[in-house]
């Protein structure tokens, strides 16, 4: 028995951007991940890892080669020779300082978060002083021959160990002189050995990984090699050491992640020995981070992988953009796909009721690609480059498209009649207030546009005149402390909900004068932050899903949690089969009243408040629908409030198109794999 048609959209193939650098903010467990296109994603690792906010690249910042947290601020360096501090509220850069010595590819920070060291192409190590509100150049250490590829402060912050071609140096920061220079040796006479990564321990033991695939331990006090392992077949690009300094992981072009453990030989004598290895990625691993015994790795394949033991677990988070990246124009059946640097509009297909041979419905109308939209800007070299897109939306009637980059917000009128050429007309004279925004949403009647500008607050524009007219500015300063990362409008257009990563969730209602009026603020759940929220079409309830998989259902009219939500909380019900992925979307089935449908990367969970709650700790019935309608019969027996459906991989979006049509946008792992460069070829058993 089927109760809806689902449109499986698989033509959304975002380019998997390689992960280049990662940096962990230890106290808040926020992981900054920079990608090849200079986008920084802030992942919250407190519960289920999810992208909390995204900082897109700007024109003059097209590369990030080093990334570090310094206190609560985030710094990056890149090949453009700039040290950039980011504004995590406005999601753009805050301060830019030029580095001496051209391109910079490594950065490290002292323990007290007061100083930054940046290593450069020309061999200068720049030391910057970080004040409350300023970054000042302090000095550089003696210039060395050749580029500096990696550097690390020692825990006492008196010394810096740096790696370059064929050599590792240890510097006295105070005097600026190199104390020791240690040569690595070469694999072949002509090829210099590149030291890609370095780490320095409490006892001044320096650990380096280089292009020969060797992991070498040095005694930094006397500048001599202690031990060397031919750890990998190819370059070691990344290394991380546990806080206790008793375990280290390294990986690189040879993506095997190898663990070395420090073991006690005799009293006071220690030795590093090779321990387990895991193969998590097929492509180069670029950075490794340890957080709570969990190892996070990222590399060329764009996946952020989390491995830990015990139990031996591997979770991989696909390179998919932060929500919302899909907008559906229900009235005209268009779908707007947001890519990192362009937008696409497709018209969805129509099915006839006739089933094709393999359970698929016959397509009466094929989906059509209508538009690709991107913004080209000249950069400093007068080359045209594509600008990254922060957010985009399309109105329900398909007449309006809005998107914002880090420099400008643009609104277009879009027109397409079947058989004709689609036309796109930019709205030329936008009001000045209509500037860079972090969230945009159209009201369901397509008459209003609501923006969340970079500087905070909300703006409501009227579109009736053909150009947007600012009708209301809502100040959110009092209720939302952080960046607005969620902006939801109810289907009736009467309710507006905005939320930030600090679990502030605020609701506005349209009053009789057609003005938005703040009606209530939800209780703050301080343990976790929301990963998705949605308003029931009947405008009764608001459902919020938190990163720890806690679900609340809030009755908007009575301004309190519903009974269902309370009983869930009381029973500490686990509603998810595997708590590895954040919930991406929440939808409701209008025909079924209160039924809530939630989905994450792979599971769809249907929660029916009308059914009895299962026993505590009961397993959620799980149905695998890999072969379409095969398993549908087994669903009838589900009597408990929750059941999960596993059908997709990397499900990005699930939403209603009409009353009985769903749209499921899936990024297939294959399409990600297709776009990746070849990986290091290694002879495997059974292959030639």
């Amino acid at each position, binding site marked *: 028995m089927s109760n809806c048609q689902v449109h499986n959209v698989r033509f959304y193939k975002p380019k998997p951007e390689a992960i280049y650098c990662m940096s962990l903010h230890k106290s808040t467990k926020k992981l900054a991940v920079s990608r090849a296109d200079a986008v920084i994603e802030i992942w919250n690792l407190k519960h289920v890892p999810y992208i909390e906010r995204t900082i897109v690249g700007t024109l003059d910042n097209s590369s990030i080669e080093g990334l570090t947290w310094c206190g609560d601020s985030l710094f990056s360096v890149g090949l453009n020779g700039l040290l950039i501090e980011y504004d995590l509220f406005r999601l753009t850069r805050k301060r830019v300082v030029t580095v001496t010595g051209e*391109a910079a590819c490594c950065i490290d920070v002292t323990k007290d978060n007061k100083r930054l060291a940046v290593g450069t192409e020309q061999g200068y190590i720049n030391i910057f002083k970080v004040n409350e509100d300023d970054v000042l150049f302090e000095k550089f250490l003696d210039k060395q021959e050749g580029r500096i590829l990696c550097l690390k402060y020692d825990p006492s912050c008196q010394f810096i160990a740096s790696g370059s071609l064929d050599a590792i140096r240890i510097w006295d920061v105070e005097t600026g002189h190199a104390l020791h220079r240690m040569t690595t040796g070469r694999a072949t006479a002509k090829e210099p050995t590149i030291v890609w990564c370095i780490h320095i321990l409490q006892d001044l033991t320096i650990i380096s990984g280089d292009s020969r695939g060797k992991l070498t331990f040095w005694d930094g006090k006397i500048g001599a090699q202690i031990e060397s392992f031919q750890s990998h077949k190819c370059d070691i690009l990344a290394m991380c050491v546990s806080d206790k300094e008793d375990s280290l992981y390294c990986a690189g072009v040879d993506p095997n992640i190898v663990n070395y453990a420090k073991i006690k030989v005799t009293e006071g004598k220690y030795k590093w020995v090779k321990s387990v290895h895991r193969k998590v990625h097929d492509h180069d691993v670029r950075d490794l981070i340890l957080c709570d015994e969990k190892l996070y790795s990222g590399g060329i394949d764009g996946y952020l992988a989390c491995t830990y033991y015990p139990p031996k677990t591997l979770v991989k988070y696909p390179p998919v953009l932060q929500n919302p990246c899909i907008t559906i124009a229900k009235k005209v059946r268009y779908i707007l796909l947001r890519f990192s640097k362009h937008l696409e509009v497709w018209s969805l297909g129509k099915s006839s009721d006739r089933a094709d041979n393999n359970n698929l419905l016959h397509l009466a109308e094929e989906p059509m690609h209508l538009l690709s939209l991107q913004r080209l800007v000249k950069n400093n070299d007068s080359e045209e480059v594509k600008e990254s897109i922060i957010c985009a939306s399309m109105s329900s009637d398909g007449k309006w498209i809005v998107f914002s980059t880090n420099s400008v917000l643009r609104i277009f009128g879009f027109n397409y009649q079947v058989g004709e050429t689609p036309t796109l007309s930019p709205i030329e004279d936008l009001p000045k207030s209509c500037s860079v925004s972090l969230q945009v949403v159209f009201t369901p009647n397509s008459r209003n546009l609501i923006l969340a500008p970079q500087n905070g607050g909300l703006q409501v524009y009227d579109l009736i005149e053909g150009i947007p007219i600012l009708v209301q500015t809502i100040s959110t300063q009092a209720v939302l402390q952080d960046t607005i990362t969620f902006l939801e409008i109810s289907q009736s257009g009467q309710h507006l909900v905005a939320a930030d990563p600090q679990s502030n969730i605020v609701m506005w209602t349209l009053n009789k004068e057609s003005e938005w009026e703040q009606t209530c603020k939800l209780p703050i759940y301080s343990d976790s932050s929301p990963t998705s929220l949605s308003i029931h079409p009947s405008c009764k309830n608001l459902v919020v899903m938190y990163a720890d998989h806690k679900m609340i259902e809030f009755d908007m009219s009575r301004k309190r949690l519903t009974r269902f939500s309370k009983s869930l909380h009381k029973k500490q019900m686990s509603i998810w089969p595997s708590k590895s992925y954040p919930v991406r979307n929440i939808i409701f089935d209008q025909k079924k009243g209160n039924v809530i449908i939630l989905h994450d990367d792979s599971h769809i969970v249907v929660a029916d408040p009308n059914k009895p709650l299962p026993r505590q700790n009961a397993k959620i019935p799980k149905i695998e629908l890999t072969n379409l309608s095969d398993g549908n019969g087994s669903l009838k027996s589900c009597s408990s409030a929750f059941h999960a459906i596993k059908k997709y991989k990397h499900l990005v979006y699930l939403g209603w198109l009409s009353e009985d049509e769903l749209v499921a946008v899936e990024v297939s792992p294959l399409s990600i794999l297709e776009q990746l460069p070849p990986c290091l070829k290694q002879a495997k058993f059974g292959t030639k």
Partner: protein
Amino acid sequence: MSAVPETSSINMINMPATAFKPLPQKRLSGARRRKIRKEERTKAGTWKPLTSVNFQVDEMESSDIKRFRLDSPTSLTLEQQTSMSNLSTSNSVTETELKMAVIDRRHPDVTLNRKQADLIQNKLLTAVDESLLRSANPPQFESSAYYGLCPLIDQRNLLGIAEDSEPGHVIVTLGKNIAIKYRISDQKQIHSWRTKDKFSSPVIYVKETDQYAAVFNHIYVRTWNGDEEYVDKLKKFKFNKPIQTLVTCNDKVFLIFKNGTITQLNEGIENRKDVALNPVFDLNIDGNFEVITACLNNNLYIGLLLNINDKVIFAVKYFVDDEEGLHKMELRRDNPKLTLKGQIICHVEHSTEVHLLTLWSDGKLYSYNLNFQDYDEPKQTTPNLFAAFETLSCKDPVTMAYLNQHYIAMYGADCNEEGAALILYNTQFKVFQSKQSLKLFTSGARLWKIENNLLFCSGQNLGVMPFYLDTEQLSALVGSHRVALIDLDPDVMLVEEMEEADWNASKKDAVDRLIPSNIATQVLDLSQQGLSESTICEIILPGYVETKNVQAVMSCLNYFCDIPELCLAELLRFCLTVEDKCFSCKNLIDSELPLSLRQKDRCGLIDKILMSSFSSTLMLPYVHRKLDLNCTLLLLQYIFYLMSGNKKHSANIVTLEKKLIDWCCLLLDANYQKFLLSKDAQILELLNNLRDLVMKYSNCLESFNEIVPILSEIKKGKKVIKNKQLSNLQYSVEKLSLY
């Protein structure tokens, strides 16, 4: 997916900073990009701060990251060619006749009479031909390297290895307390069984009951289903007499008691109180023997080799044609100082009789016939000297394993006393065929053959050495035989002197073929001179070509199987260039064909030539030399015509196509340079046509590729998953029930 033209027209709209562009798809790997960036910058020295650098994809060649693309197409074709040439050489060799004289080495003065010599030669050749036909099998080690399956606790603790219910798996009883089931292909542990009692036999799989069984503490037997981890709590069968071990032979499992009694497991369990009261030996032997099992000609042999009081006694229990029997014999050599170093029950030479092959410390292999049932009286056990053996050192024990009728595997110390060696020994021709040296020799280490793998102890590891059975090639055998004769000291010596041609002995096939009348006189004349087919061809064909005798040429092609490549090339040229009048004027009315090829008979002749067997390596220079560009083009056009669905032959379309493809490759190879440099429109058109054809074919192969797994699923009786390819669909609508 419909890419809509509308998009392109949008490009016309000009906007100040926004434009539409096709999205580029190229992408560099991160490490590469980083390096290129750095290299570029250092090279150019034009670094401007505050700019973002744009990098060109094309300049990525100088990267020094070691990445390798997967196989290139050239290597593929090369491989194909070699394999083809192998095949055809073997063909051609088989067809040439060998003439050998047979001289007994020990009695060189005794000349065998004609009949005896014939018999021996015949036997040799039929043996070789048979093995070719059956494609069995000079075993070769698959690669020079073996791999470790698992570490051993200690070589001595290893109780044994047995085949499992699933193919590709083995049960390794590593020690007294643990047995592990491994998958050979990836060396993964699949399951393990532990016990606090002690295994005293390997864990084996009993096919009859689909259970596992093992002996514990020499006195209990337990059987279990395989899911258990600990086997201590299972029901145990206690026996009155101590059990030595459990062996499996041809899916039957036998209990062997310490007193030498052999009984089937199920029978043993049923009568466990009374069993083993009638020992094989009168002596008190208490398990002091070795067990050898063999299943040859569907008969089972279980032998016990007892070393007692400086005597070696061999007792064998055989199950021949539902009859059981027991036979004992003493293995003895004239010199009492010689000791037995290895033994196996196998076939020797080309007989199907079962022999016990024993290796003695002086390097001599002796064989004992075990066909007892033919004689009412136990035959006097006189050993026959089988061969002298030098490949392995006979000072240390040599372990042997039976591979097939003609081969056994042997493991022992290397003959130079450095390390060990694993060899494949041909019992038919008494030569070793393949050898793998190992660094460490373990005395008395055992050897198991599991499917196509040999398992052996290599130091502290259990090594797996895959071997494969390839088509036997006469040439290889002849060569190895000679080496063996020089190296060893055999009873019979073959001397490669052409004494007398004897065509009648092995010309069964040829007799059946009637020599076409128009060439009969000449061929008979020449063949009576003892010339081979190829030589006859070389002599008579040029004459027919000269006189343009098309019929005779056709007859030759029909009659001879082994036409030299030179002649084939000549004939091709002749067929393509000879005047029309030589053929009857029946025309093919097919406008697709080139004008000069529209005669039916000419085409028939060309078809015949194309279907002849040849070696592409040998053919290549002749094609290059003899066929000029026009001929080649004509031929290629003709092949193209045949390949594009105009095949008249209904016989075997696969062979035909294979041949045509071979020819096509050959012609292209031979004229590669010319084609490469030529700008001739005709050539280009032809090459384009061929390319399209190849594309068509390779597209077909893709769908075949998809069919193969489906067929194999069907064969296994599994449900075919219809929607396998659905995830590749860009867009689909289906019904989904959420509740």
